[in-house]
């Protein structure tokens, strides 16, 4: 354009100048011409609109640099100086923030060039406030997003830590659980008492060493088998029904169930059981039973009871002293148990020996009370029902006194003071006469 300038006529130049002036005025971009000292010498309408100042307020009065926000001023005056040193030093385009007359910010995209052969620069400003605001909003939302993301990450990290801590806890819990489990396992396995656990289907789940010893089965052989295999054939049903009742929630305190050994011997075992329910309290998980082998004790008990029975029998002997005469010498206190025993023995012996007279000797009885007397009277009437007679002998003075004081009526019982007089009386009853040899 410049080389053409010389050759053009003044008119043409003026025309062109007008054209440029019009372009300058109607341009949508704000255009300003800035002097070397940054005073704005000329602006267009768009510039006026952009900053809110009128031409009169700006041209020759306002410094370009003063329109900038404080933080941009150094940069822009720097560009201004650099541009005057060398064209390429300062950027051709830059973004800057300016202050509107009303105080609001105006963001603009600035294109700056030096007018040829002058120190003036021409600035072209495109309002990018909206763009900038959008950008800022974008930036802000991005920051928000980022901070949100960071927060979330932090949260996640925290959560992760918590999880790890929990995992640690769980691990520890698991370890202690394992430990407890192992402990219980040992407890069950090596317990002296036989312990067995079975499921709701009555299949054996657990079987300890003591049980192995008790039955002779090995654990591996019985796991999963029905409980029935443990019981002797004769008691299978009874035992299973007991176990059914235990499993239905009824707890046995102590139940005797016979267990059969693999070699066929039967052991008596005292059991107690407990049923484990699921969380709903209804579903049965398993039933655990613990036993105590009482076979030996049982045997001992039987011996004791047999011996005491024998002692009881010995304590009430019934002896035949003559043909058709039996004697029952009583020694010690007469309780109802002994009286019963005496009655049975006496009646039995009377029938066996065909006796007509039974002598009951109470010399060895320390005292007779109402109960004892009642028991004796019962015995006497039972003997009479058989068709024999009773002679009560050995009534000592003390006993006679007691009987009278208690008002016990023995008037229809034959009584004698001693066994020998009783025997004489019995012989009389039988019309037997004993004579000395000549």
């Amino acid at each position, binding site marked *: 354009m410049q080389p053409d300038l010389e050759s053009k006529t003044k008119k043409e130049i003026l025309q062109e100048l007008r054209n440029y002036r019009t372009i300058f005025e109607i341009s949508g971009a704000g255009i300003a011409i800035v002097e070397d000292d940054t005073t704005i010498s000329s602006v267009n309408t768009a510039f006026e609109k952009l900053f809110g100042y009128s031409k009169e307020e700006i041209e020759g009065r306002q410094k370009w640099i003063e329109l900038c926000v404080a933080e941009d001023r150094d940069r822009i005056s720097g560009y201004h100086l650099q541009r005057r040193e060398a064209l390429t030093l300062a950027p051709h385009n830059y973004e800057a923030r300016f202050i509107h007359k009303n105080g609001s910010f105006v963001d603009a995209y600035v294109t700056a060039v030096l007018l040829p052969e002058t120190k003036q620069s021409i600035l072209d400003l495109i309002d990018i406030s909206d763009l900038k605001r959008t950008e800022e909003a974008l930036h802000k939302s991005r920051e928000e997003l980022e901070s949100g993301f960071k927060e979330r990450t932090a949260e996640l990290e925290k959560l992760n830590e918590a999880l790890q801590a929990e995992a640690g806890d769980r691990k520890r819990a698991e370890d202690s659980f394992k430990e407890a489990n192992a402990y219980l396992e040992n407890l069950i396995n090596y317990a002296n008492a036989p312990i067995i656990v079975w499921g709701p289907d009555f299949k054996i789940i657990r079987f300890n060493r003591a049980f192995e010893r008790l039955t002779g089965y090995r654990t591996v052989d019985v796991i999963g088998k029905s409980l029935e295999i443990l019981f002797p054939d004769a008691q299978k049903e009874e035992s299973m029904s007991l176990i059914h009742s235990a499993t239905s929630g009824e707890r046995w305190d102590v139940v005797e169930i016979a267990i059969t050994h693999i070699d066929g011997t039967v052991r008596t075992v005292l059991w107690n059981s407990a049923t484990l329910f699921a969380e709903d309290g209804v579903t049965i998980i398993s039933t655990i039973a613990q036993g105590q082998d009482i076979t030996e004790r049982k045997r001992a008990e039987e011996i004791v009871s047999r011996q005491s029975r024998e002692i009881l029998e010995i304590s009430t002997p019934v002896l035949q002293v003559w043909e058709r005469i039996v004697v029952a010498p009583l020694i010690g206190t007469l309780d109802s148990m002994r009286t019963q025993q005496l*009655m*049975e023995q006496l*009646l*039995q012996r009377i029938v066996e020996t065909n006796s007509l007279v039974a002598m009951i000797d109470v010399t060895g009885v320390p005292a007779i009370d109402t109960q004892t007397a009642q028991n004796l009277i019962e015995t006497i*009437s*039972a003997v009479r*029902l*058989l*068709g024999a007679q009773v002679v009560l002998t050995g009534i000592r003075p003390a006993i006679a006194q007691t009987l009278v004081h208690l008002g016990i009526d023995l008037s229809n019982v034959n009584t004698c003071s001693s066994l020998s007089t009783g025997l004489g009386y019995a012989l009389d009853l039988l019309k037997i006469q004993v004579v000395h040899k000549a």
Partner: protein
Amino acid sequence: MMIDENISVIKIRDVLLVTMPPDPDDSSISLLQEKVLSAMEQFPVKGVVLDISAVQTLDSFFARMVAETAQMVVLMGGKTVIAGMQPSVAITATQLGLTMGSTLTALNADLALDMISDAF
């Protein structure tokens, strides 16, 4: 009648021997009384021997009927001996407080016959 076959009333010499079934019911016990009394009327006997050696259970009705029959026989000029009561029956009877009153008892029918003969 079925019940008749369970109770036998036999006259041997001058004694009526009555044998009771193992488990007498009330009607057969009532029947027993009638049969004994009619036999007493029919035959001139000294007494009645009631053999209950087969009886395993004894109730209050039976005990009362026997005691009553014995009294009736006494009124008709005879005497009654209950023979052969089982020890277990005797025990139950005494525990229940059942008595035969003043009725005579004997270990067995043989001894009962002796007792009736002795009276004369």
